[in-house]
């Protein structure tokens, strides 16, 4: 408790053997005032500083460094040897078929996984919103997939979708259908990957919706039923408008998640084949392309370029969204 006083003389005016039991009263008071001033003015900065230091070290610095690397030709083995190539990496990426392929895959997998996921979440939330037995159990159960690691989930689904001995093909066979080569064919592969994403995130979104639904006042439903609205009409005209802001929030969240899709396709493709998103790049996402350039081809410059392209794309989406919003508010 006495830290401030015993250590104070270090900065005080009395050199030599410091009076341990305290100096004169005025000296003490002056020092106290100084500390107090420092405390009021300086402490807030000290409190927020850790965040900014961490931000600078782990976000801002990498951002700047990545942009610098992307203008160079650098290999992982020799990070200290850089060859300045200006915007060559970007020009090359623009003309690279793999980039557009990865972008298209990212978008299609994003749509296949996000749309059913949010619709299903809405339905599940609606059901969970009813009074029922063991509702807590069902709510917790719907969150369990979210708590599972990507690796474990992706691995299990990879086995389920395995060509020769997977459960899905076994089930298809038992009802007389031909087996599907889930990994190799483009759309089956993208659907399989989307399944992993849907499985993991539906429950989480359902809980978000459920929380929003419970905030809707019950008298609205009463009024609606007095007007003779059916359950379905109540859902469309009372529930959905009531949770609109939450729906927008989950759409934003899933879109960000979809652009960063990486772990699921990587594990689904197994080893080197996963890095390229299948033998034909049929499910290579932008995240995988970045990884391929950096950790398979060991070209850090080109990997950094992909990272920046992804960043710029997100900014582009944001700008377009703002523009649309402005146009809509002007027309309405």
């Amino acid at each position, binding site marked *: 408790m006495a830290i401030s006083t015993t250590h104070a003389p270090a900065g005080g005016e009395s050199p030599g053997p410091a009076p341990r039991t305290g100096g004169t009263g005025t000296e003490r008071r002056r020092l106290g005032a100084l*500390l107090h001033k420092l405390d009021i003015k*300086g402490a807030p900065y*000290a409190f927020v500083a850790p965040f900014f230091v961490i931000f600078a070290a782990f976000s801002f610095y990498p951002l700047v460094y990545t942009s610098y690397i992307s203008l160079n030709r650098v290999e992982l083995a020799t*990070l200290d040897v850089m060859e300045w190539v200006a915007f060559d990496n970007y020009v090359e990426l623009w003309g690279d078929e793999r980039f557009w392929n990865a972008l298209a895959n990212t978008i299609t997998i994003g749509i296949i996984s996000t749309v059913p996921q949010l619709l299903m979440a809405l339905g599940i939330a609606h059901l969970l919103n009813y009074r029922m037995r063991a509702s807590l159990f069902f709510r917790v159960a719907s969150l369990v997939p979210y708590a599972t690691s990507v690796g474990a989930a992706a691995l299990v689904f990879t086995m389920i979708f395995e060509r020769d001995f997977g459960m899905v093909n076994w089930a298809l066979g038992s009802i007389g259908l031909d087996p599907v080569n889930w990994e190799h064919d483009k759309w089956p592969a993208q659907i399989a990957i989307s399944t992993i994403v849907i499985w993991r995130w539906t429950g989480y979104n359902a809980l978000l919706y459920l929380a929003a639904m419970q905030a809707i006042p019950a008298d609205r439903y009463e009024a609606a039923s007095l007007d003779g609205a059916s359950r379905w009409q109540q859902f469309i005209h009372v529930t959905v408008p009531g949770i609109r802001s939450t729906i927008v929030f989950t759409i934003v969240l899933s879109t960000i998640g979809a652009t960063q899709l990486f772990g699921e396709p990587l594990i689904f493709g*197994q080893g080197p084949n996963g890095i390229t998103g299948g033998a034909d790049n049929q499910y290579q996402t932008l995240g995988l392309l970045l990884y391929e350039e950096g950790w398979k081809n060991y070209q850090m410059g080109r990997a950094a370029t992909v990272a920046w392209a992804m960043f710029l794309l997100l900014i582009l989406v944001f700008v377009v969204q703002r523009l649309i919003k402005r146009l809509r508010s002007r027309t309405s």
Partner: protein
Amino acid sequence: MKNPGLLRSKRTVAALAAAGALTLVAACGGGGESVTGGSKKDGKVTITMGLFGVMGIEETGLLERYEKENPGVDIKAEIAGDEQTYYTALQTRLAAGKGLKDIQGIEIARAKEITETQADKFADFSGMTGTDHFLPWKQSQITTSDGKVLGLGTDIGPMAVCYRKDYFEKAGLPTDREEVGKLWEGDWSKYVEVGRTFKKNFKGGKVAFTDSASGLFNAMVYGHSEQYYNEKGDLIHDKNPVVKEAWTLSSDAAEEGLTAKLRQFQPGWDPGLSNGTFATAVCPAWMLSHISEKAGDKNKGKWDVARAPKGANWGGSFLGVIEDSPVKEEAKKLVAWLTAPEQQAHIFKELGNIPSSEKALKAPDVTNAKSEYFSDAPIGQIFGAAAQEIPDKQVLGRKDGTIKDIFSQGLALVEQGTARDKAWATTMERIEKAVG
């Protein structure tokens, strides 16, 4: 406020704590330890090792034995499962100069890249006494152009063909390993020819002749001294007739449905082994332990090993020592001991990794070895003979590993029905990207 002083000092403590947190953050990455984690103190020596896969050094108890025979030496080994992950981490650490181990394993496909770009980071073994027992080509692969030897060899990967006797019998083919070897002696195209016969005559379910087109491709390419690079270090993957020939024959096998369209060492391959969906696999020595483990007890005695059409080498590793290690000399001594003929023979006996030491290859323990799982096949003789057939000079290139993976993917495309010319063009384009 009864005690403003208390409040003030509380705040000061909080501010100090915040400042402390700052210094903590700043201190991250400082660290005053040696670059490799090894140390020498009061007569006690600690040596750290970074290994991958099943190199057999830890698994067969050699490290414990060394510690027992050399009191005061403490060895800490860290083993990564997958070589690709291991190598990526090693490269990052070499670049950063941090997090390295005193002894690092080096896979053959990386040897060239290490000798070309990282030679100054590794200690020199040239002239060390008692290290002249290796196969002539083995040590030259880890030697730089100015004669620095960056490591000592552990195992090599001579090839044979593993086959299912019961399936061969059902297809009316001979089952005796000598006769089977004769079927395709001297030419890989005869192996594919046997595959055609197998496909025609085999009755008894969906069984492919071989697991993958890429296994055949690798075996063919690795049998030649010039593979993807020529001696000057130029890429020749697109014009080397050897590669072209291997591609053509593997594509034939793929198009005619002789392969099970599996990817080696990936999860789909393992159930293929245990359920027996293919009759043969081109197998380097180190693959035997994987097959016996994954095919399991129920298939014991059904597998056998026959000579491959031609000698080839796939894989094998080295152990190198980091130059800046504080225990460099001790680590070099340990590496020399681990790669000595007796220890290599010991690993072979336990696991089946074929020694890279010529002396060990001639040891009775090795030449008389039989594999119980593979119908008592004399694997010592089969692989020993195959080791002699490996070309004396093998030109390695920096991106050998990556190029191999890309060719494997190209052949996977052919297996799935892409026209071979288109798959070839795609493969060439990808290699261009990968090496550029």
